[in-house]
């Protein structure tokens, strides 16, 4: 047992080394990784990075309002005198939190649905599950989320829930594709012959094969989830003021263009850079999980 374990560990180390090599060949992906790491760190340590933590809550200081970028407020202040940089940092927290919620809710549901539908391929389970998936796909995700959010009280949790309802279908479809093609593979059939029950087969045999696809999709999706969250926030359907939401900051700022341009431009840039970072990582991950020959 010991020998097997150490061999397995070495094998995993090798795979990680290979994976990192492939990922790092694409310099842009490494750049994306750096950007995202910085953003995550900034979000986590936000309160320690800025002296203006109170600006996130109800704060009014009209004598400092509407100030362009300066040394004191590197990204300027908004209508109520709140420091924009601080609000962006805390806004990141919210965006990342929302993305985590959306993915945390939709991924497990979608993956399980996809696995079940894929394993019970061509039975009534498959058909029902896939028809349900199609129902949710009949309307573009954002619009569905919009419709759902609008009937609920607008806040962060509800927005995340609404997005998850639209999101899980993509996971389901993806995993369904992999699972149903695994279905006819030998390792599944031999497991059945050996008398394994279906939960074991689905979760211990088929699932590991889907992991790389799921992982890649998750890393790509964080970017899109942030984007979708920002879109909902732009319409005022996300976190409510005074909590900083990147999308609503852009919306507020755009009403005062072009004079108070910094109010809209900086949050917008914040969104773009984050999504950009995740997209870059996503590309690198795709390279990493591609044909594992070398």
């Amino acid at each position, binding site marked *: 047992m010991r020998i097997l374990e150490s061999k397995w560990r070495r094998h995993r180390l090798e795979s990680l080394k290979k994976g990192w090599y492939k990922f790092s060949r694409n310099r842009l992906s490494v750049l994306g990784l750096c950007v995202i790491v910085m953003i995550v760190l900034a979000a986590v340590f936000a309160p320690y990075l800025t002296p203006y933590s109170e600006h996130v809550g109800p704060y009014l200081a009209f004598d400092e309002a509407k100030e362009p970028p300066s040394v004191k407020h590197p990204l300027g202040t908004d209508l109520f005198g709140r420091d924009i940089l601080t609000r962006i940092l805390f806004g990141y927290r919210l965006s990342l939190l929302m993305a985590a919620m959306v993915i945390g809710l939709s991924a497990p549901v979608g993956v399980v649905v996809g696995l079940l539908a894929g394993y019970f391929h061509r039975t009534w389970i498959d058909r029902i599950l896939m028809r349900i998936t199609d129902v949710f796909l009949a309307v573009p995700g954002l619009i569905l989320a919009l419709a759902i959010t609008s009937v609920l009280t607008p806040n962060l949790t509800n927005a995340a829930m609404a997005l998850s309802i639209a999101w899980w279908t993509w996971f389901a479809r993806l995993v369904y594709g992999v699972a149903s093609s695994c279905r006819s593979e030998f390792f599944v059939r031999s497991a059945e012959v050996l008398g394994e029950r279906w939960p074991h087969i689905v979760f211990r045999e088929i699932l590991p094969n889907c992991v790389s696809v799921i992982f890649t999709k998750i890393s790509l999706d964080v970017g899109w989830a942030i984007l979708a969250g*920002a879109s909902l926030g732009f*319409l005022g359907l996300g976190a409510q003021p005074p909590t900083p939401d990147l999308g609503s900051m852009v919306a507020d700022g755009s009403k005062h263009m072009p004079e108070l341009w910094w109010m809209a431009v900086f949050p917008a840039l914040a969104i773009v850079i984050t999504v950009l970072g995740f997209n870059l990582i996503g590309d690198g991950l795709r390279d990493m999980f591609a044909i594992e020959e070398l």
Partner: protein
Amino acid sequence: MASLVFLGRRIGLSMLGLIGLSLLIFFISRVLPGDPVRMAVGPRAPEWVAENIREQMHLDKPLLVQYYYWVRGALRGDLGHSLFTRRPVSRDLKEFLPATGELAFFTILIVAGFGIPLGVVAGRYANSWIDNLVRIFCYYSVSTPSFIFATLFLLLFSHVLDWFPTFGRLDMNILRPPAVTGMITVDSLISGHFAAFWNTLWHMVLPAFSLALPGMAQLARITRSSIHDNLGKEYIAFERGFGIPDRLIMSKFLLKPSLIPPVSILGLEVAATLSNAFLVEFIFGWPGFSRYGINVMLQKDLNAMSAVVLVVGVIFVVANIFVDVAVTFLNPKIRLGTG
């Protein structure tokens, strides 16, 4: 023949999907907290007014009965009355849908017309400076949501440079052509009001590009990788061996198989465009269906909301069918079955 059956099945399934969706939205909208009727009539209206409206909308009856009334009406073209505009929803739709239709049409034109050639060029000259430029552009554009583009364009091209108008479809001083389709471009061409034609196009530039850029970038990326992949395939080397000139290979033999992935995602791109139109129309004050949709949802206008979701669903289904047909045309394997 197989493809017709295939298509028929797709349509049928989509219909089923739409029905399921309408059920979903219907029920969600009906069981919401808060009282939309009260919100619509205002806090000072007497209760009997609100009661009347509730009765008219069958809100007092059980949910399934309500659904039945709604479906019956929908099949006849009567989607109920909007709580806020007090007009039949179908009239509202007729007024706003063509505007969005125009915008969407030009947006898709830009997305495909610029996106695919960009991808082809990038794929052909992969890893050269052209490719790198295109890729950088694509990365940025894909990561930027339409509403940010809209905001930025508005700032830059409208407020600062004053090259394009800020809102609306037509300048105040230009006469609107008699409505035939409701689309100003088409109507003006039909009636010969060329001033209106150019003017509305000018108004459309900024919103259309804001909507189009992310989709264009995505399409370009997929086209690029498709072309790049196929360039290394054996059949291209085989064809080159016969001395077939590069430009023929690029324009015909490489292009057709490489178009399959981008066209397949065109359906998704239409969906994304539709979704984003909701925000962009809002920003540019484009009196379109999407802006109407947002207002309707923010105001919890029940009938209108269900109608909007339904219409979006129908558009999406139709777009997907078109895409499927196009892919079938490109890929003979689907058309003829396997062997």
